[in-house]
């Protein structure tokens, strides 16, 4: 237990006289009212663990610690979440050993687990072993009046996937480098879009929809694949619904946006943070203007700018509580008056701290 408590949280807990509590954990969930018969509920979102094998039974300690800590904390929250989503990139290079090691850590979760496919899980064996462990790569389920859809958004051109690379290892390596010019843009593809159209045909337009994808179903920066090539086509299928929420991993940073009826929220990685694309001086990015960026990570605190989140859809829209280790938690929730997600503390420019432009 004491292993999970950081220096900062121990100091804060000590100051408050509450020794042994994890100060980053909310004591109880905020309940938001929503008309109708749905029960309030919360789910946990853990993403981008990037479990990386060094050799044999040895794995990169840093990434292991991120996932272990998220799982341990997720098991402590009260009331327990209804289910846990894992948002993809469980492995670093899609190896069976990595998926097994990560799967072993995830197996300690006390709630039901649903998984999303990430490119790091996929491009070694095209998702074969992952599917053995976690089942179909795209599916939907209903929970307490909300329709949840999981997509595999990290597919790409057949030529790239099936014909370009001499070995599966090389294909995985080429896709694993975020800034690698040899990689290829992500897409959902026609087959899944047709499936999605049929899946949604049975759903009333009043039903809140939550779509889980690994890559953003919007276009932010192609150079790092913060991008889905057929994003507009997928969005068009979702726009007729009154409350649509897309939650994505992959970007290892907080982003949020509103496009028509669709709200977008990203989730954090447990492994490591990424710089915002606008910090790359040689390219232009399209980070949604709504996003209040995270502080820059502090490399002297290994878990800084990583974390996990508690999410509810009690208002029909996503409220995401980011549990940020070694940093202050943030909440990004839909504002019904403004019709878009906002950061509950920092959205107004006058409420922002001098951004931590250094560590």
């Amino acid at each position, binding site marked *: 237990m004491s292993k999970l408590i950081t220096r900062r949280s121990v100091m804060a807990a000590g100051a408050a006289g509450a020794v042994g509590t994890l100060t980053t954990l909310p004591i109880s969930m905020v309940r938001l009212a929503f008309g109708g018969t749905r029960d309030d509920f919360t789910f946990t979102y853990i993403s981008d663990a*990037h479990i*990386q*094998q*060094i050799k044999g039974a040895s794995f*990169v*300690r*840093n990434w292991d610690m991120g996932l272990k800590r998220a799982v341990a904390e997720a098991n402590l929250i009260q009331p327990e979440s209804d289910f846990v989503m894992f948002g993809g990139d469980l492995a670093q290079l899609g190896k069976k050993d990595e998926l097994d090691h990560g799967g072993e850590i995830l197996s300690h979760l006390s709630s039901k687990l649903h998984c999303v496919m990430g490119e790091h899980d996929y491009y070694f064996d095209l998702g074969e072993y992952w599917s053995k462990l976690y089942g179909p790569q795209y599916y939907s389920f209903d929970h307490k009046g909300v329709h949840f859809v999981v997509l595999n958004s990290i597919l790409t051109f057949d030529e790239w996937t099936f014909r370009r690379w001499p070995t599966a290892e090389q294909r995985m390596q080429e896709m694993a*480098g*975020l*800034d*690698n010019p040899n990689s290829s843009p992500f897409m959902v593809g026609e087959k899944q879009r047709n499936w999605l159209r049929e899946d949604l045909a049975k759903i009333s337009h009043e039903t809140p929809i939550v779509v889980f994808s690994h890559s953003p179903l919007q276009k932010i920066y192609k*150079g*790092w694949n913060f991008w889905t090539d057929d994003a507009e086509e997928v969005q068009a299928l979702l726009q007729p619904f009154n409350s649509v929420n897309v939650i994505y991993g992959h970007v290892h940073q907080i982003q949020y946006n509103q496009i028509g009826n669709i709200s977008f929220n990203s989730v954090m990685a447990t492994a*490591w*943070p*990424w*710089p915002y*694309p606008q*910090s*790359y*001086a*040689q*390219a232009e990015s399209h980070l949604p203007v709504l996003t209040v960026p995270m502080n*820059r*990570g502090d*490399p*002297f605190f*290994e878990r800084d700018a990583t974390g996990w989140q508690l999410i509810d859809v009690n208002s029909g829209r996503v409220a995401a509580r980011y549990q940020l280790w070694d940093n202050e938690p943030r909440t990004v929730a839909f504002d019904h008056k403004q019709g878009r997600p906002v950061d509950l503390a920092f959205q107004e420019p006058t409420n922002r701290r001098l951004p931590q*432009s*250094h*560590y």
Partner: protein
Amino acid sequence: MRRTLAVLAIGFSLSALNARADEFTKADTDRYQKEYLNVVADGRALWTSGTLGTNGVACGQCHPNAANTHPETYPKFQKQLGKVAQLFEMVNWCVRNPLEGKPLAADDPKMTAIISYVNQERRGVKLAPGTH
């Protein structure tokens, strides 16, 4: 002593040919640029290599296109190092910690390559030494 005389002799003989110290041709600048870009390419290879450290982790995993390395701000005071540090010291900090590797000497050709790559990806940004 004999060496100095020899250098002087060369100097005299060159000026006798009317050469000036700062004279270089397009072929020269092309060659300088090529030499530099070769070292940048070596730096990019090290940046994305899992063998620079000991645990298979590469700099590029956390710093795509060397983003968030801010070479323009060095030298600067690093609170955690407790002194004004140079870029190579922060490079070594990341070599030792996330990569669990051995620090490189300041003039190690690998360090030169890494620093060349970092600066190349940051070209065009104004120098801002000492800032954060």
